[in-house]
């Protein structure tokens, strides 16, 4: 049975190497030693002992919160902010959603729109825990892991046969219906999860008939399953799959050709699936091998039809596929020395309305990590990864991190590393001309050919001096040399456990970003508009401090609080303001004045201050549990109102706000749980700037445990 168990542990196998917890300096930490994380090192490690900042949200907490989708879980965590740009994404260490890699059981989710991976695509009903690694993790995980990694760990098969059914209904006719199933025998294990999530949507201002709803009605189905089979004493095979389909429909008013308004019916459907067979083999007590294959697809389709005539108004589609085989070897050379190495190959294709043809890119990578524990007090992890790519320069991402147990109740940890994010398909292959305004945008991969084509078609403006088309060669050269965005990041923090009941963590971070991608004009068209492409220019930084405290006030009652201080600025803007070259207009008097360094508020959509306060109560014998969670997001910039395209004045901020959520549950005879809750108790809304916030929401749910109880 000892061997059978590793089959069901994880796709990440180092626990099977039975590496004893590296340091057990005192008993105070033991209560949390069972909390393991896999995302930090790609091997199982105790949460308190990893040398980099990691947040873990357990299933118990997720249930106590009454959360339905991943966004509900993440937005209440210290240092994480949900932001909206073409969907709801996560901001981590002040970096936009495109810089955080999102994994399910260690495999990347695909299908981002303008960089955002919609968090509501992920149901949390079958999640065992969510791990959030803060700071770059490209040394292990490659592209996109520049700000950090969110890894969703789903439930593993439990001994016996069991499962549950769950029904929840709430405001806005939001219904969530689903169940889980788990079975495990001597050799075979199976989990399954199905979920239906639907809502009537909501309208924050105006009426849905006149202006269209803020969020249109939708229905989403998720199915997920994992099968594990013990092939031999040392070999295990598992097969996981996930499928999501979501449909949305609404009516909106558009300007008709006659000049009046016409009603258009909007229908969209998105599908997201993945399949992952994993083979693990234990060569010896010291060597463990994993072979993984992963394939994922993401497809969307949007149709706009005139209601009156049934004629099409517009349609669009987007198909993306991702295929990746990978090998990983974990070798425990001696106790306290673990070497992890791996290699893989990625093939990605995309086909879409705004791309010329099916586009394809390939990359191969190698990574290695040395996890060294020379003394029980010290742990050092050195890792690096190289990604070679068919479309841009290869990327080398090293990282060094260490943790030192200074005193039984005090540990220091620090890390320095490089993170990167590859140019996305849009930046490489987009082919788009705005029919109304008349400008064009081309991906860097084809911009030279497209500019030449426009020139032969006589669509470019001609310089009368030279008789040549107006093409900005320097910028065109920059576009063709497009490379990945990257960062150098530093984290330094303390873990303090002064009493068994109190835990404090503090972490300071700094991310220096370079080669950020921006659009730039490469040529001038005859119609006076420009041809745009992308180039690496912007330099920026984010830095700040994060603090978390947890105190067990009474048995069963835990209080916690978190705070993040954040500064995020564009370095070029800082320089220009210092040189006195930035101006602003007073919107009332129309007078122009010089912007002072102290006026600059940094990048948009970042809150200088954010904090949370939570109380979780649990009385297991009596079956009661309850939670109160308050999350404050400080004011943040939304855009420019005074003519300098940067954040420097009070009217450019969205005011700060509190979200207060309540939930309470009672379990009868260990099988039946009733839960009721209120989200956004204060009913805060901001229709102009926060369309994702629907106001106060009530809900009630019923959960029945079936089969063997855990």
């Amino acid at each position, binding site marked *: 049975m000892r061997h059978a168990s590793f089959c069901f542990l994880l796709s990440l196998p180092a626990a099977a190497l039975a590496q004893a917890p590296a340091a057990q300096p005192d008993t105070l930490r033991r209560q949390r030693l069972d909390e393991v994380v896999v995302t930090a090192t790609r091997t199982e490690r105790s949460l308190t002992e990893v040398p980099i900042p990691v947040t873990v949200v357990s299933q118990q907490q997720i249930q106590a919160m009454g959360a339905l989708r991943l966004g509900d879980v993440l937005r209440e965590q210290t240092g994480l902010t949900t932001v909206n740009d073409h969907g709801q994404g996560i901001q981590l260490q002040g970096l936009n959603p495109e810089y955080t890699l999102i994994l399910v059981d260690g495999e990347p989710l695909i299908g981002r729109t303008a960089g955002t991976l919609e968090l509501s695509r992920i149901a949390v009903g079958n999640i065992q825990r969510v791990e959030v690694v803060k700071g770059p993790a490209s040394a292990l995980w490659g592209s996109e892991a520049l700000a950090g990694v969110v890894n969703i760990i789903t439930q593993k098969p439990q001994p016996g046969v069991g499962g549950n059914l769950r029904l929840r209904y709430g405001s806005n006719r939001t219904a969530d219906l689903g169940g889980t199933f788990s079975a495990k025998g001597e050799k075979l294990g199976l989990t399954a999860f199905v979920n239906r999530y639907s809502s009537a949507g909501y309208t924050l201002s105006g009426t849905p008939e006149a202006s269209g709803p803020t969020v249109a009605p939708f229905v989403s189905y998720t199915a997920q399953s994992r099968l594990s089979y013990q092939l031999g004493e040392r070999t295990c095979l598992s097969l996981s799959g996930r499928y999501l389909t979501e449909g949305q429909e609404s009516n909106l008013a558009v300007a008709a050709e006659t*000049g009046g*308004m016409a009603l258009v019916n909007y229908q969209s459907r998105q599908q997201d699936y993945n399949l992952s067979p994993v083979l693990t083999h234990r060569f010896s007590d010291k060597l463990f091998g994993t072979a993984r294959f992963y394939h994922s697809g993401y497809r969307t389709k949007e149709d706009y039809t005139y209601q009156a005539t049934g004629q099409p108004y517009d349609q669009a589609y987007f198909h993306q596929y991702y295929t990746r085989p990978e090998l990983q070897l974990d070798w425990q050379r001696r106790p306290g020395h673990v070497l992890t190495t791996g290699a893989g190959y990625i093939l990605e294709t995309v086909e879409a309305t705004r791309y010329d043809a099916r586009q394809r890119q390939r990359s191969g990578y190698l990574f290695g990590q040395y996890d060294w524990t020379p003394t029980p007090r010290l742990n050092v992890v050195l890792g690096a990864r190289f990604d070679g790519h068919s479309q841009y320069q290869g990327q080398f991402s090293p990282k060094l991190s260490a943790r030192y147990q200074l005193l039984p109740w005090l540990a220091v940890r620090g890390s320095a590393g490089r993170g990167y994010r590859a140019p996305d398909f849009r930046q490489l292959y987009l082919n788009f001309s705005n029919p109304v305004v008349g400008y064009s945008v081309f991906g860097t991969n084809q911009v030279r050919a497209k500019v030449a084509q426009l020139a032969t078609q006589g669509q470019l403006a001609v310089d*009368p001096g030279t008789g040549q088309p*107006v093409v900005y060669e320097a910028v065109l050269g920059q576009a063709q040399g497009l490379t990945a965005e990257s960062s150098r990041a530093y984290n330094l923090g303390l873990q303090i456990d002064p009493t068994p009941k109190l835990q404090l963590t503090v972490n300071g971070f700094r991310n220096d970003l370079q080669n950020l991608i921006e659009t730039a004009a490469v040529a001038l068209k005859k119609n*006076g508009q420009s041809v745009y492409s992308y180039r690496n220019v912007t330099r920026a930084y984010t830095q700040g401090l994060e603090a978390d405290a947890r105190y067990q006030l009474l048995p069963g009652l835990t209080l916690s609080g978190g705070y993040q201080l954040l500064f995020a600025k564009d370095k070029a803007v800082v320089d220009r303001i210092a040189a006195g070259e930035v*101006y602003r*207009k007073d919107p009332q008097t129309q007078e122009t004045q010089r912007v002072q360094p102290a006026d600059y508020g940094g990048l948009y959509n970042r809150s200088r201050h954010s904090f949370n306060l939570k109380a979780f109560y649990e009385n297991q014998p009596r079956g009661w549990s309850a939670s109160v969670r308050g999350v404050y997001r400080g004011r943040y910039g939304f855009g*420019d*109102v005074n003519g300098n395209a940067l954040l420097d004045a009070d*009217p450019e901020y969205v005011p700060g706000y509190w979200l207060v959520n309540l939930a309470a549950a009672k379990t009868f005879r260990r099988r039946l749980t009733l839960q009721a809750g209120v989200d956004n108790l204060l009913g805060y809304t901001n229709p102009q700037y926060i369309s994702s916030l629907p106001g106060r929401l009530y809900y009630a749910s019923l959960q029945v445990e079936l089969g063997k109880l855990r």
Partner: protein
Amino acid sequence: MNHLFLRLALVLLTVAGLGLTSCNNDDDQQDDTVKPALETKTVADLAPQPGAPTSTGQPGQPRHYTFYSLTEGKEVPYTDSASTKWDVAFRRTNVLINGGTSGPGQGGAKVESGLFAELTTAPDTYAVDAASGLAIPAVTGSGWYNYNSTTHLITPIAGKVIFVRTATGKYAKLEITSYYQGSPASPTLATPSGYYSFRYVYQPDGSKNLK
């Protein structure tokens, strides 16, 4: 000290003159030519020439440019477009000067960064309108405005001062303050656009002094 008194007197005189002019004639401020203090004039909501809306409901392309004489301080009819009676012309985000491919005059322009009050001398070299681009670039971020692709709003870039050589070769400086009707502090997509509000200083004596 004498100079100081002299200047003070001149300022007083100017102020008095202004007051008198506005009392006498509200519509016409052009008679005031007391030297050397040049007057900053403001123009509000210079309206576009209405055109039919496009198929997608965007505001239609105005039928033609709206012409303005900095020299005279008034709008010039379209029928005078082939003359040197106008100095600048506006249509959507394009601003023309009366020179090069746009008109028969000696017009030119140069966009500089700085405060309107601090930039007091007209530069020596000017661009003229050409097929390859206008003297005042009609491109977001590099001329007088920024286009926000999220909100689709046009915002004049703060601290952009346009030096204009007029149709007759005199100098002026101009700062566009709003592109929307009524110069609202927070325009929306529904605010009628193409309505130019600007301030300018015109030097009638032909010198480059724009103090």
